[in-house]
């Protein structure tokens, strides 16, 4: 384990922690522009988090320890996930500890704790949010796994950085199988991060929300951690997408510190582009009814399976 690997790891974690709210702010700004509204400041998510940290926490009288622990676990899981995903460099010391399947497990852990915490106070909205969140989870997970399967079959490994390294250094630039899985992944990303068309991050209409319903009882620092974790989750998903589908520009160990430095603007460019695309998708589509979510995610799964079949038939 060399010093540069540790530096890469720490840099990635710091970048994730710092840039995640910025990414959310950027998407909100793009969305406002596309919808002809005057855009909020890109720094608004930071101000929100800062404000929340300074408030007094108000907790329901019958909340248990689990309720107070869950924000830390969710946040911790998201930070750890950021450590597995090669957003800047592929030589990470954390790589061998957890592969892509463990990453899916880590995201599931966060989801389960969030849902349990939502059930803890025993309100109608909390339990409703919990079951919807778990529903989206079990619908999205098989699709996500199929996506990872395709990438693993192409590069004969399940370690995410190794996949990225393989894809980034291949002479063959385009895989038709990955094109299908990229569509599938975008759909999974939208569903898992409570974006339109599955959920609306801007709504507080009780009967349609999923993610917000989970957080209704949280306040102050707990809410701040949950919001930050949600931003990190979106950032992580975006970085998984970069790692699988646009892996170029990531430092692969050759080139030393310079390559690492060069990967920072590349990541920034990718994030800016991805934010624009996400805002565009969210602007042109409408929210689906909750029970249309299975169809949406089944479509994602079918795209991933198509990718798999294309890979097995064509070998590409």
């Amino acid at each position, binding site marked *: 384990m060399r010093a540069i690997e540790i530096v890469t790891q720490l840099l990635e974690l710091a970048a994730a922690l710092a840039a995640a709210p910025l990414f959310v702010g950027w998407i909100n700004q793009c969305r406002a522009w596309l919808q002809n509204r005057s855009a909020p400041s890109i720094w608004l998510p930071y101000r929100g988090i800062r404000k929340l*940290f300074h408030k007094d926490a108000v907790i329901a009288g019958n909340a248990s320890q689990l309720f107070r622990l869950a924000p830390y676990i969710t946040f911790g899981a998201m930070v750890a996930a950021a450590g597995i995903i090669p957003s800047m460099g592929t030589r990470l010391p954390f790589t061998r500890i*957890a592969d892509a399947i463990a990453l899916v497990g880590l995201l599931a852990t966060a989801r389960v704790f969030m849902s349990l915490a939502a059930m803890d106070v025993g309100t109608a909205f909390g339990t409703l949010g919990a079951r919807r969140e778990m529903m989206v989870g079990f619908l999205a997970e098989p699709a996500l796994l199929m996506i990872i399967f395709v990438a693993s079959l192409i590069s004969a490994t399940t370690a995410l950085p190794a996949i990225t390294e393989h894809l980034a250094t291949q002479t063959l630039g385009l895989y038709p199988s990955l094109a299908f899985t990229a569509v599938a992944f975008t759909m999974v990303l939208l569903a898992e991060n409570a974006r339109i068309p599955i959920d609306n991050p801007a709504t507080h209409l009780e009967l349609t929300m999923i993610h917000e319903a989970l957080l209704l009882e949280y306040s102050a620092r707990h809410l701040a951690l949950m919001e930050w974790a949600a931003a990190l989750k979106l950032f992580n998903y975006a970085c998984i997408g970069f790692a699988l589908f646009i892996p170029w520009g990531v430092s692969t160990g050759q080139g030393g510190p310079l390559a690492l430095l060069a990967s920072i603007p590349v990541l920034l460019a990718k994030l800016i582009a991805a934010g624009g695309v996400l805002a565009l998708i969210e602007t042109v589509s409408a929210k689906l009814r909750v029970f249309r979510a299975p169809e949406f995610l089944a479509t994602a799964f079918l795209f991933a399976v198509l990718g798999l079949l294309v890979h097995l038939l064509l070998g590409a």
Partner: protein
Amino acid sequence: MTPAPYSPLTACLLLLVLWGVIGVAGLLRPTSLRFVGRTLFPISALCSLALAAVAVWSLGMPPERAILAVGLPDLPVHLRRDGLSSVFLFLLGAASAGISVFAAGYFRRGHGTSAGLLCLQYHLFLASMGLVMLADDAYAFMVAWETMALSSYFLVTTQHGLPEIRRAGFLYLLIAHVGAIAILLAFGVMQGGSWQFTFDAMRAARLPAPWAAAAFLLALFGFGAKAGLVPLHVWLPEAHPAAPSPVSALMSGVMLKTAVYGVLRVTFDLLGQPLWWWGVVALAVGLFTALYGVVFAAAQSDMKRLLAYSSIENIGIIFTAFGLAIVFRGVGMPMLAALALIALLYHSLNHAFMKSLLFVGTGAVLHSTGERNLGRLGGLIHRMPWVAWLTLIGALALAGLPPLNGFVSEWLLLQAFLFAHEVPRPFINMLLPMAAAVVVLAAALAAYVMVKFFGVIFLGQPREAALARAHDAGVLQRLGLVWLAAGCIALGLAPTQIINGLRGVVRQLSGADLPGQSAPWWLLEPIPGRQASYSALGFLLAVTAVVLLAILGVRLFYHQRVRRADPWDCGFARLDARMQDTAEGFGQPIRHIFGAFFLLRRELPSPSDRAPRYRVVVGDRIWERLYVPLGALVQRIADGFAWVQQGRIATYLLYSFVTLVALLALVL
């Protein structure tokens, strides 16, 4: 041939006999709970621990055998202990240790059968399961198998005063015997005309392919009936809730695994060379079972039925791994067969701990509240913190979350599936990777089920006033829970060590070894050279470190002020416990999405109803479509035969006469 004096086999036999003695000792003072509960059951738990220790000690040893001249003349009992037996003996010992300690604090007066008799049945059950794993001829195996079925039948019907429990017991006994007949027939096929019923003779008999396939399918049916493969699963959700909780734990955690043991023994040891298409059959049945079980688990509102269906799911996953192992073995990829078998054995061990933990957890809840219905529980984390937090470990493990044990076996299974496209059979190689998606769907649904299970029982507000009087588990019960939870954690954190332990067994079954571990001890890397590794310990450390840093950071930089207030609930002021989701409500998305699985009967109130009632009954399609017509058919045939019973002595004498004449004609 008697066993060597200081061998593991002797030790195992002695411990099984000791279990028998403890059981009989229970009859000395059958009504004294103090004697039976506080003395005999803890001693029995020590026996279990000793058995587990012996099993670990013997894991790497060569097979050893013994012939005991007991039973019928000229039919001695053949015994043999090898690696496979050791693994399952360890499972039996380690899981039953926790369950027995829990049981010591569990049984109370007024449980139908007296404590002493219960103790006898319980220990006969344990000893017969041990004997199943040591038997080396068909007679001994079937005798042990039947003892196991009968003793567990009596345990299931402990509260035989209730008609539904008698009904559950009957269903269990019926399916157990249908399965036993199939196993008996499988042994009959496997002796291959030699009429020798020792397992050695069966290993030596080289069966022609059609007969081997017949034996395999019979064994799959027979052991599948015990394991709860769909469509033979119907007894499980009836029998598990009927039995006392420690017995449910034992049946679900350990007894189902005897079926796994049996099917492994027959397929990989006695038949020797499985064909790849057998694996496809087992895989298809396993996948369907997994999905079916977990979907039904999500729709249940009785906590023990929910766990029973979840057991069906896990058995499905185990049989999926079994099928995959056969496919790999059949097409000549023994190393991957070894990987799938490791996933299989690992998941069996995991399930023994996780499911026993959850069943004894429900036992503690049942004890303190008298309630099995999820709709009348809730908020118990405040009243029963020990049970709640320990059960949470089991629930998270069953949900397949890292770094607990359920994740490891699923990870290994998925790694094996990643090679499935290399199987040199067209179509199969494309279908197999998609089977992995079903496994993941089942695992993700299991997380849904566990959130429902834990959330509805332990979180939220108590749904009944009586729950305020709930008390936490006693010391012995806690000890049992802690042991099982520790097992879940240990199996999760030390995968490399456990896989090293299983290596020899897997070599014996698959004919090939997994390549030696070149990675450091804390890193699991099943196939060297391929970058696929997982370190539970590192994972735990990393996540814990981040969580602790977050807590510390918040503590350092911000204040710690907390106010308690009424729940916010979007400003709704008159919140009460009935506004939370019920178990039925939590199952609603599942009923909606997987409607094709269920037979739903809804009773909706009309707007003008005086006493509006909403009822929904979730039925099992297989029961209605398969078992009810089958039962009717059997009844019709029996009615036809009933004509023979004329009730007149002259007719019966005529029957005897005709039979005699016919026999004479045959002989002369």
